[in-house]
């Protein structure tokens, strides 16, 4: 199975996302921001980084990249899409996911290994977890505070679209300690923490993040 990883100008964790895909047993495929071509992949990852230098607003410019004009309709038709950190910000800017990411409470960039709770283990990207399971994955972001209006938050809660929450402490002032959400269909997932940095205890705090990637492999193969 082939999983695309989009490189925007300023993407940084594309290499790490590709490694995680490989460790999960799939083939990573490089997708270039300027190409209107998804290269017939089975799923797409928007990696972390600072696309377009975070200029204007995180993700605000990347959503207009040529590749997005292919991705948005494909995602709406059910293509599994995972946005990590800046990728999550881009998915929100592209209105594939509800809400927005704002400056951290405290206004400083935060890199920290955090306990997360998997709230929804039925999405395309979290099926390999069990609901309520706690995992340790790093967070590294300056604008990671999830925000949405009260109506949207209530609707997300109701519909089970809150996928991941900060378990022990809320590091950045996210509404409802939300670390990740999905769309109504569950094929598009975005989260601020970096599961691709927790695929091997040698280079990460745990290997807990790997199952985001094995989730999708199992799903597509099944």
């Amino acid at each position: 199975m082939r999983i695309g990883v989009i490189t925007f100008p300023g993407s940084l964790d594309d290499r790490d996302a590709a490694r995680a895909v490989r460790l999960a047993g799939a083939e990573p495929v490089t997708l270039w921001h300027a190409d209107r071509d998804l290269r017939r992949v089975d799923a797409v990852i928007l990696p972390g980084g600072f696309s377009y230098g975070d200029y204007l607003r995180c993700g605000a410019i990347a959503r207009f990249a040529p590749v997005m004009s292919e991705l948005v309709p494909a995602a709406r038709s059910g293509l599994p899409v995972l946005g990590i950190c800046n990728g999550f910000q881009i998915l929100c800017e592209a209105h594939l996911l509800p809400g927005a990411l704002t400056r951290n409470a405290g206004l400083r960039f935060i890199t920290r290994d955090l306990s997360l709770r998997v709230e929804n283990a039925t999405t395309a990207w979290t099926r390999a977890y069990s609901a309520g399971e706690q995992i340790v994955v790093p967070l590294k972001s300056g604008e990671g505070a999830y925000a949405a209006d009260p109506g949207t938050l209530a609707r997300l809660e109701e519909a089970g679209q809150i996928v991941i929450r900060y378990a022990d402490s809320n590091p950045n002032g996210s509404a409802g300690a939300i670390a990740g959400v999905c769309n109504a269909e569950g094929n598009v997932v975005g989260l601020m923490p970096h599961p691709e940095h927790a695929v091997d205890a040698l280079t990460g705090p745990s290997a807990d993040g790997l199952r985001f990637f094995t989730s999708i492999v199992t799903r597509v193969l099944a």
Partner: protein
Amino acid sequence: MTADTVLPQPFAALGLTGSEYDKIVATLGRRPTGAELALYSVMWSEHCSYKSSKVYLRQLAPTAVQSAALLAGIGHNAGVVDIGQGYAVTFKIESHNHPSYVEPHQGAATGVGGIVRDILAMGARPVAVMDALRFGPAAAADTARVLPGVVSGISFYGNCLGLPNIGGELDFDACYAGNPLVNALCVGVMRHGDLQVAAASGPGNQVILFGSTTGPDGVGGASVLASAAFGGSAALGEAAKRPSVQVGDPFMERLLVECCLELFAGGLVVGIQDLGAAGVACATTELAAAGTGGMRVRLDAVPLRDPSLGPPEILMSESQERMMAVVEPARVDEFLAVCAKWDVRAAVIGEVTDTGRLVMTWHGEVVVDIPPGSAADGPVYQRPVSRPAGQDALVADSASALPRPVDGPALRADLLALIGSPGLADKSWVTDQYDRYVRGDTVLAMPEDGGLVRVDEATGLGIALATDGNGRYAKLDPYLGTQLALSEAYRNVAATGARPLAVTNCLNFGSPEDPAVMWQFAEAVRGLADGCAALGVPVTGGNVSFYNQTGTVAVHPTPVIGVLGVHDDVRRRLSIGFAASSAGDTELVLLGRTEAEFGGSAWAHALHGHLGGRPPAPDLAAERRLAGLLAAAAAAGLLAAAHDLSDGGLAVALAESCLRGGTGCRVRLPGDPFTALFSESAARAVVAVRPGAFADFDALRAEHGVPGETIGRTGGGDLVVEDCFAIPLAELAAAHTAALPALFG
């Protein structure tokens, strides 16, 4: 160019002396143009020319130490070291002290940007950065301005650039109050054949400037900020009204990195140099001087962000994120296409000639016509040297007279105070703002002894890095202090299980025009040269930062030494953390010899505000044996943890290891407990031996000739020193982590 010898030229305002100006006139055989005067002023600045330090730095030639690992040494932008399996590594540390005081955020940010371009220009992919930071008293009002700005600048630039920050230093001392030290290190990896050269060779080859546009930022940064004592009257007339600190755009640098690596891979580059201090002036003169010898440049072809700039400002501008390449005419279109792919602006601004002259025109008019070597080489000074008047009194003021803790509770209180003092407190407030995970190859980062980055996923080959400096030791004895900094960095690399291979250095000193400072500098360089010879590690490059002084008060002489090591298999890395083991508790062995050495110690500084006496005696032969033992024991899988002993001695090392791994320990100390806990004797480490491996380790230790003694075991939830005190880890953690958040929010 008609010479007008009547009107005086503003050489002094540009930082040139009368005799330097006369030398320019003699070299050219005429009065220099305004553009030429600007060019010489930045090229002959202390920052660019090393005019006061050059006579000493010859001792650090990489050939001074026989090493098979060296591929390129001083003279290139940075040295290159062979780490095996076809890989080569280049690393360098550089100061950005003065800009970071004036504008902490941008000053520190562009310090990262500058050192990364240095590494890139060698042909390597930058893979990690480190920062060695020193500030005034932690509680001082100005430190609350400078430190958060410096940290946010490093965070802003390094994170956006996508380079993991894997370690460094943080220290505080009153001597850095008006002169913080911000030293940035970058390391890059390449294949053996990828080395690029900084030379403009081949007449007819095109000179291309690419990256950001050129603006008025940083005009005269090298000559005004970094080459005169603060508070001086140096001014650049009109230019002085503009910011002399550069403004960084890490997004452009990110694109520039990927663009350059694709240009290198395509074989499109004959020669390349980064633009740093002295901008276009430096890149053109150095490329020309190192190559065929001549170059013709159209300054009006330089893309500008401010159309009002003229030739002197274009030459002196330190706008960031720029590179200059020499390209064969037939490859120019391909070169420009790669730049376009990465949205990097590029302009052909000249060509290589064999005239031996660097000729620059401005809309057809010749504004510079010089032999490039005359600007690139610069003057050389043998400054007066004299041992500081107060040195004897300082050394006589021994720390042995200080009141010592007399019993268990007093020792306990001193340890808690020490690990809660700003210089030794938990640094997460700083390091949490840096991305240590990006690229996915970081195996060890702070608060470990050294940073460790995987180079090859298949074989586990990796590189370890550490930087260390101790201004207090160097103030007491710059020769020994420099060797102690070298020893500590070498030991920190060894404590990860790596073999130390090469050295870089950033020498932070006061004014070279002060003979006492020059004595410190001369002693420090001699110490480093002797130390490297004894350890068998060559110096592959470095940087000198003078004029770190306000008025007549200089910073402590602060040589910051970076050591690079190779790790054959990063899966066998050693952490400092004591971890709970299902196989049983591990035995703790103290390696090395402990003497009563408190001169310049963290204990004397943090508990008594005292600085005097002699620093600990370095023992380079013992360091070498200790490093050999640690690497061999790591490779054999005998150790569960290792931590070097330095600031705060065994007490602080045990506390850090307990907190890192979340597991306590119980030790029984030999001899006087105060000396055992707080002495800072060199060439020591504490190791946790894996259950069942003690006999093998003890044999290996004896074979390497390293003294060692079993002092206890890991385990439990307290740090226990038998017959003295017990501290629950929660109490230890509270003391360790409270300090910086309390100061900086």
